[in-house]
């Protein structure tokens, strides 16, 4: 187990290095001078200022030197300064990471509660009215684009009913509900279908039949055997989904003015604010790798047959 972890962590470092290297190469290939003009303006920047900024950001040095310098600072926790406001990237991204994490956690909670719950009930009452309704509604929801759901929710509950402010404070817990539901709704539908499918399969498995034949109480059969075995694919799905959410949800964050990393990424790409782009992307890759590891570890916990080696 310990060895396994070490190996995985080693792999992670390689993946992260590879990711930053590719990012750097990509940014270098993109035409356009990141400090050549004023932010979002048609106006050329004073050549003297351009020169000063190039030196300040090390842009006058070859790409390889820039990369090594960046990595050297990164391991010390220094992600450099952004090109627009000239503030430390870590200071800019810190609060955004917190906001994105809040949203991701809330969305996952909705996912699990609604998705897994609804799916499990549907499987238990197979072919009932409830089951049919779940199948129908989830099919429709899976086909809905996120931005439609987000705009509808915002217009209904914030603009029309005024239950929550349109522009709210990310520290206000009520403010997270609408974007979290927006993010969760499609995922929850997928989770419900996944849960229903695997649970039906498990319910037909021989060991469940055996347990019932032995006279084990239904409650115990469901909790100990059925549920535990059904959640494995769900855990995988949610783990990966959570990784994606922590990397930032551009559309949802945009609609709800949620100051997270997704929004930061899309703005930074448009402004060619490269330090932010590299910072967010590195974070996204890192968190994804970490969560994959966590999911793998959870497999072993849920299913003793799986051996990590």
């Amino acid at each position: 187990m310990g060895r396994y972890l070490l190996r995985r962590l080693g792999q992670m470092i390689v993946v992260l290095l590879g990711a930053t290297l590719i990012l750097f190469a990509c940014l270098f290939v993109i035409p356009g001078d990141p400090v050549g003009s004023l932010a979002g303006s048609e106006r050329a920047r004073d050549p003297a200022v351009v020169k000063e900024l190039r030196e300040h950001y090390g842009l006058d040095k070859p790409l390889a030197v820039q990369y090594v310098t960046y990595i050297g600072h990164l391991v010390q926790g220094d992600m450099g300064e952004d090109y627009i406001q000239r503030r430390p990237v870590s200071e800019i991204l810190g609060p955004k990471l917190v906001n994105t994490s809040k949203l991701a956690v809330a969305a996952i909670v909705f996912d699990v509660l609604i998705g897994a719950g609804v799916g499990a009930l549907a499987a238990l009452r197979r072919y009932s009215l409830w089951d049919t309704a779940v199948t129908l509604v989830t099919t429709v929801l899976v086909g809905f684009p996120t931005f439609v759901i987000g705009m509808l929710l915002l217009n209904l509950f914030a603009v029309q009913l005024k239950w929550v402010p349109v522009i709210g404070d990310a520290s206000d817990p009520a403010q997270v509900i609408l974007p979290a539901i927006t993010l969760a709704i499609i995922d929850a539908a997928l989770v419900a279908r996944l849960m229903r499918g695997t649970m039906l399969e498990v319910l037909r498995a021989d060991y469940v039949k055996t347990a019932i034949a032995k006279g084990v109480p239904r409650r115990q059969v469901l909790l100990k055997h059925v549920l535990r075995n059904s959640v494995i694919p769900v855990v995988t799905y949610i783990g990966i989904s959570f990784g994606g959410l922590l990397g930032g949800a551009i559309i949802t964050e945009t609609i709800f003015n949620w100051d997270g990393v997704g929004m930061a990424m899309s703005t930074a790409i448009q402004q060619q604010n490269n330090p932010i782009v590299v910072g967010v992307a590195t974070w996204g890759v890192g968190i994804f790798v970490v969560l994959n590891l966590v999911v793998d570890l959870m497999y072993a916990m849920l299913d003793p047959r799986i051996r990590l080696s």
Partner: protein
Amino acid sequence: MKLTKALQWTAVAAATALAVSACSSGSADKHPGSTVAKNGGTFRLGIVEPTAIDPYNTQESEGTLVTQNLFTGLTSVSADGKISNALAESRTPNDDCSQWTFKIKGGTTFSNGEPVDAAAFVRGWTRAAAKDAASDVAYHLGEIDGFKELNSGTAVTFRGLSAPDATTLVVKMAIPDCEFDVRTFHTVFSPVPQVAGAASNKAYNDQPIGNGPFKMEGPWQHNSKITLVRNDSYGLTKAHLDRIEISILNAANADQLEYQGFQAGQFDWARMPTEQLTAAKATYKAKGDWYEWDANGMNYLLPMDFNGPTKSKEAREAISYAIDRDAIAKGVFKGFRTSADSLVPPAFVDAYQKGVCASCVKQDKDKAKQLAAQAGLTPGTKLYFGYNTGGGHDPWVQAVAAQLGDVLGLDVHIDGIPFKQLLDKEKTPDATGIYRAAWGADYPTPGNFLNPLLATSSIDEDQTTHKVQGDNRGRYSNPAFDALLHQATGTKDLAARTKLYQQAEKIAIGDDLALIPLWNRSQQRVANNEKWANLTYDFSENPTLATASLK
């Protein structure tokens, strides 16, 4: 898209709106001072995250909104678009405009109690011009003697500035300029207190201490909010609002969020997404909450005047005649833009020359074809048309390209690319074709259109890369035009100066059509006039928070 510094102009916007009242639905209370304004109230609005609110680097409209309420400089631009004194009591050039003397109102203070004297101005201007500041707006100070040395780091003091006594500021010019005072309302000319320190002082960057009608309540909460409260020790006419709560919105859909916030009663002032303008006007115009005006700015096509198919003026005129501006204004912009027939916009009431761009006035297919034949712009000629994506330009760019194809048979290659790439492309020595462009002046003078966009000195070619470093990216160059501009900045009399600028525009636009004007910069806002009095827009297209009050 982020409102740009190109919007940070000056303006005469308000003037036009008042003059052309058919265009402006105006606020309910147009008589400031007719009743005693009440103190109180919290005004709320949304902006996108500014680059800076510290005057050394304040640049776009959003930053200007904050900085102008925190700082008061020598001059201000009044609602009718004219420069007037703020802290200055007089502003006097010598005979050849190589030296300016400003008398400053005595006895006013910063909100921390430090005096606002001539030394405070010297301090502020020096701080912004210093090399380490790497300020994007310091170039506005570039005409002053000693700027080069200070900006390149060979000096630490500003040689051209002196303060013989507390209320006298003397400015020696390296480049004589008879309209230098027009520049001084820009926020980079703000005075700063001693606590400001250098431009790198992060604490001051986020919570500037100024001498304006409002002051910061706590530091700037990045990407979240900025809160201002009334400065009760303000040295000029005090404001009435208790607080201004500025929410910071995502840049990508700020206009949508502003409008939704306004509809929900959360904001008192808002922009709207283009596609909702018609509905918004229908709802809010009747209530007196609607503002619509042509602001200080111009949308135009930038043709490469030195290279490729648009090298001859006949070719450029053919393109201009082939475009039906009115049809696109109506079809694509739903009537929320007006067609342009000049480069210096109608918002510059005194300088505007109606129809100076003859080919802009009305589409003329025959003339277009005839000129195209003359210029060798034969059907099938390839024409590159670059524009930036993400700015909502796609529909009209396609419409213009279609018209050029229909009328002239040109093979137009539309190329939508990110903004910085577009600018980079325009700067290269082998650029050809036409590009989408827009401009707004920093100060209310036609010179701020003509000089940066068309003067030979604004090409400023880099000797090694041969790229344009200035804003004259079409590389237009005409000695007669340059001479008129030079003569204009050396002319003290405003009316005579305006005439010279008009002559210059006649050459560059009327004769040479160096740029192809398309539409004026039309603006729309909604405002909560049931709640607020004395509320209108200013030259930076921001609400007039220093005068607004509760009804």
